[in-house]
């Protein structure tokens, strides 16, 4: 039996090399993995590469954190109430995105649209709060050009904000596609990727609010 995941004739080639397709992990006792699992796996690999990019920004921030060049430090700038509201928005939007997944599983158009709309509005609220915070920093002379600390801060948190904005565009597209084309399999696969993306953004934010905002708000003598 030829595996749908391997090109034609590769079974013979593998047999000559002494490798069974099972050993490659593409075919198990239960048969080849479904397209859904392959799609999810591929997108999961992309998300991990995205996380690795963020880890480089985190490393740059951690290295440059003290280099304030005489400008404001994290302790002077951060407003934790704003961070708390942003965190609540993203956490709730992750939950409503999960509810949208369940509604898609049930082929329920109305609840899919409602859950996605709430997810989008919460994401939009997050973006608005972040833009307000950033413009407040710039107005106080603490823009990204002020110090190495602020450059790395704006790069890290801004990159997350850009991801959320792209996610909002994607979310709007998914709502339109579900509405216009229904619960077709390829669209459900697209939505699977979107929900993974949205949950992963929340995970990045968990690291940002703990390690950037909360650690940064500690008085300087308590920092590691």
């Amino acid at each position: 039996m030829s595996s749908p995941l391997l090109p034609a004739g590769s079974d013979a080639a593998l047999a000559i090399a002494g490798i069974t397709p099972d050993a490659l992990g593409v075919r198990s006792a239960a048969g080849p993995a479904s397209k859904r699992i392959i799609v999810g796996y591929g997108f999961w690999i992309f998300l991990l590469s995205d996380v690795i990019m963020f880890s480089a920004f985190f490393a740059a921030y951690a290295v440059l954190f003290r280099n304030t060049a005489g400008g404001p430090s994290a302790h002077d700038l951060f407003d934790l109430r704003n961070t708390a509201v942003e965190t609540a928005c993203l956490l709730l939007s992750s939950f409503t995105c999960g509810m949208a997944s369940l509604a898609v599983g049930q082929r329920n158009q109305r609840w899919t649209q409602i859950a996605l709309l709430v997810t989008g509005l919460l994401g939009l609220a997050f973006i608005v709060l972040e833009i307000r915070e950033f413009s407040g920093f710039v107005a106080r002379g603490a823009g990204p050009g002020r110090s190495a600390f602020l450059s790395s801060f704006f790069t890290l948190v801004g990159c997350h904000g850009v991801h959320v904005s792209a996610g909002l565009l994607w979310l709007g597209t998914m709502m339109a596609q579900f509405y216009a084309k229904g619960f077709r399999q390829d669209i459900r696969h697209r939505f699977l990727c979107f929900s993974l993306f949205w949950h992963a953004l929340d995970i990045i934010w968990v690291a940002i609010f703990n390690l950037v905002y909360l650690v940064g708000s500690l008085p300087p003598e308590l920092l590691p």
Partner: protein
Amino acid sequence: MSDPSDYDAGSYVGTERQPGSREERTVAREVRGYLLGLSLAALLTVASFWAVRTHDIYSSGVSVALLVLAVAQIGIHLVFFLHITTAPDNQNNILALAFGVLIVCLVVFGSLWVMLHLNHNMVPMDQLRRMQH
């Protein structure tokens, strides 16, 4: 596509369902799973915000506590929202995740380690200027 094992990272999106009361109970269970994840994540978030205000934690340990709380909350998100589990059809996702965590640790802790040593071993700026004359 009606295989019940046909869902992994990211909930039930792709599964075909038969109508019936048993299926509805499954949905209720799924909702409860998300609610449990939401409450655990909210609890850890509140704990993080509490940790920076309280004086009950030894003050130099607060940043370590925040790191631990962040890792715990990321674990909650992975299990309850992204559905990364130990199920057999999830092994590839787990392996990729383990490799990702390895690279992230290398990048973050490696950078910090190298840069702190460089700072430590660098000739101070004023001394460097005197050497240029």
